[in-house]
């Protein structure tokens, strides 16, 4: 196997992991948009109404970006969007952590205030940072194996 091929396959793996996580996260939230809005409000980062719109739109964006990455369609653009989402999540988690909020990140549904012993900021932060790096890789090298991009 050539070096190029190996890098293509690594790209495919990163694409599936990032896309898979986004798709699952979006699907778990899209069935309860009200709860998604509450989860965004719990960060106390955005004004009330704007937080609502973000909460409603976020699951849909996650599902679409996730699907594009899994299919390998417009990989670079999807990776840019996925990376921006992860960057926003990382900032949100750091904000909640630094502000001493006791909230569930709401990453996979749920969200809102929880008892202070149950917060999982380091884990959430680490996961989203790894996914952010995966997105960064795909932006720099969007060519991957088994991608629909090759058929366009």
């Amino acid at each position, binding site marked *: 196997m050539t070096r190029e091929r190996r890098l293509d396959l690594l790209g495919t793996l990163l694409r599936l992991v990032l896309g898979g996580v986004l798709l699952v996260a979006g699907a778990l939230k*899209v069935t*309860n*948009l*009200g*709860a*998604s*809005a*509450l989860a965004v*409000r*719990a960060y*106390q980062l955005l004004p*009330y109404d704007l937080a*609502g*719109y973000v*909460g*409603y*739109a976020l*699951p*849909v*964006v996650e599902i*679409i970006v996730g699907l*594009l990455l899994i299919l390998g*369609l*417009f990989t670079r653009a999807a990776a840019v969007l996925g990376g921006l989402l992860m960057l926003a999540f990382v900032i949100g988690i750091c904000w909640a952590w630094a502000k001493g909020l*006791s*909230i569930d990140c709401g990453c996979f549904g*749920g*969200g*809102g*205030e*929880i*008892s202070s012993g149950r917060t999982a900021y380091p884990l959430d932060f680490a996961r989203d940072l790894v996914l952010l790096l995966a997105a960064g890789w795909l932006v720099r090298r969007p060519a991957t194996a088994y991608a629909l991009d090759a058929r*366009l």
Partner: protein
Amino acid sequence: MPRPDATDKLAATAPAQTNRLIVGGLVAILTLGAIFAAIFLGINNSSKNSSTPAASGAGSVATASTATPKGATEFGGPMVVNPDAPANVPVVDIFEDPQCPICAQFEQIYGPIVKGLVQTNGAKLVVHTMTFLDTNLKNDSSVRAANGAFCAADQGKFYEYMSQVYANQPAKEGTGYTDDQLAAFALKAGVADQQAWATCQATLKYKAHTLALETNTEKSGVTGTPTVKVAGQTIKLTGNATDITDAVKAATK
């Protein structure tokens, strides 16, 4: 020597470019459509909740829309449990959702202390009943329980009713309260005119007030329960009932 002709190469890439444009355009339109649909659905759902209760039986919707229970500061305002408290004692704000398990624990630990403060007028107790767990748990038990408490408030039994709610909270979060349970709370809380309470509850007379209170509370920055503020400052709950009494003592002039 002539420059190499690029037309062959262009001809090879042109269809691909067109494909990308078409597919990309479709994906973009689909994405925007889905986002607008989600925002529309979300807003629609939340405004459906905050509209007046459906005319389910007696009571005119017009009067129900801004009906405010006795003891509430205003429409969509919190409940003042002991309005006759003297001016020199601090205000204790408590934010609770009837379906929040930690709130039931809170009541177990801090309930007697808070009750004592009310009875001796050692603090002015203001209760902000929240109902966001209805959204999370996909039921309507928080709104119905809050409405039951507000119907009891008309007869001076808000706090007693709420104590019943938390003392009898179902073990599993999300089970909710049955209508029979909510009626039993009214009886145990000592609501004198049961018929009036039942009518008030059947029409969910204070649903609009309850939802307005939730929105106002969220906008004020409180998004979780239980939250306790003494003289405007959120206090840390360590599981020790003295958390509140210490803060009250420090804030009493």
